[in-house]
């Protein structure tokens, strides 16, 4: 599940952002603003995948507990 979420994210990000940023630009002296804004954008995606990861770990943890209690019976 985790691998395919990453693959989907890869394709999405690659398509959208490559097309958006792929014009030539004169790199100048202040890359700070680019990093600032990039973090705002990428933070949304990474925050979502992290929350999903934590949620998934909790689900797996609960399932394992249920399975082990069944085995004991």
């Amino acid at each position, binding site marked *: 599940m985790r691998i395919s979420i990453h693959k989907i994210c890869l394709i999405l990000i690659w398509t959208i952002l490559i097309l958006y940023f792929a014009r030539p630009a004169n790199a100048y002296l202040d890359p*700070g603003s680019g990093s600032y804004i*990039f973090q*705002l954008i990428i933070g949304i995606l990474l925050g*979502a995948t992290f929350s999903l990861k934590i949620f998934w770990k909790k689900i797996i943890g609960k399932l394992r507990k249920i399975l082990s209690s069944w085995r004991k019976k």
Partner: protein
Amino acid sequence: MNKIPLSSSYRDPSGFVYQENGTIYRQINKSYQREYEQLLRTGLFTDLVKRGLLIPHEEIKKKPAKIIYKIIRPQPIPFISYVYEWCFSQLREAALVTLEIHRRALKFGMVLKDASPYNIQFLNGRPVLIDTLSFAIYEPGVPWIAYRQFCETFLSFLALMSQKDLSLGLILRAYIDGIPLITTAKLLPPKTWINFGLLTHIHLHSLSQAYYASREPGVPRQKISYANLIGLTDNLTQTITGMKPHFKNNGWINYYRDFSYSTKAMIDKQKCVSDFLGPGRYRMIWDLGANTGLFSRLAAKKADSVIAFDSSPEATEKNYQINLGKQDDKILPLVMDLTNPSPAVGWANEERMSLAERGPADMALALGLIHHLAIGNNIPFSKIAKFFKKITRKLIIEFVPKKDIQIIKMLNFRKDIFPDYTEKAFEVDFQKHFKILRKKTIADSLRSLYLMETI
């Protein structure tokens, strides 16, 4: 009062580091009072020190005056090393420690305002944050200010070393404050575009920088949530954890297995080195040309600290891994080419010290080294002796005669232009700077060991 500010400590208005009567202190200015109190009050300081992530310090009782809020005395670091001297795993550990500190700081309502590799030093073999003033108060909605620095330093360096070549660590002597992302992106191979972490934090990040460089975006109204900051930190951690060093197979790592010594000779050499070290204890031993650290570990039994230098990043990496496995925390392996040792770099060539400025050691080992310098690199004995005098007080050095199999191999495809490479000439040139205390020929070998002291 003999207060000498450190030439590397000038950028932060929150305070600076200085030396007084041989001890290092940090001055905390009143402008940083609020942050420092929060660091202590929230328990973040105690948490990080307990986990060995932040350098402990002692507060010096002094009346606050003018701009000074407090003076603290941090635990001393036996040997200052720099990011361009670290092997891959040391750099990776330092990066992971930085992210771990930032993640923990967020939980306590603070953030790391710097992600500079120069804020990390190795203490007892492990990376620790030495800049106690690196913390800022978390402002909800504000992105992580050190994200760009982290990507241009830790992440870029690691990506180049893992994807291209370990020896690219040396690039950092030129790009001391970080590699521009556009440069890293161009140097990385195409396969990095399908690595989610590198695609995001290097390639797309660099494109974003280029895009906004020639525009005036104004002040963004969007905010970044706490969960998103944690997600960002977690993703950087996962990206770095997944990186492996790019090893090329060269002869250096198998040095001790393949060449030069019979078992009898090796045992005798170790016994002799131990005997020459004597019964006492040294504060600092430098093992020059340490390879995978066989003799560094021997020296560590008689020293508080051993710095193990080798020009091979692979051998230094292996040395580091072996020490981790043995939980040997007295040895610090570093990548150092003695024919081109770390120079003084940075502003006015004073920010980061040269190798010689960080000495002298109490004792140095130069085992299986002299022929690589004199024949491999054409350096005369007199120059080698002069350099060694600068960096150590005592020396255990191994003389390798021309009939040795290593030298025969070295001269196989080269003209022998070394008529002065003799044991006699070696002794004469070294005695201009050293007094020979003892000499012993290694059993079952043509090589000899010398114990010397500077005059």
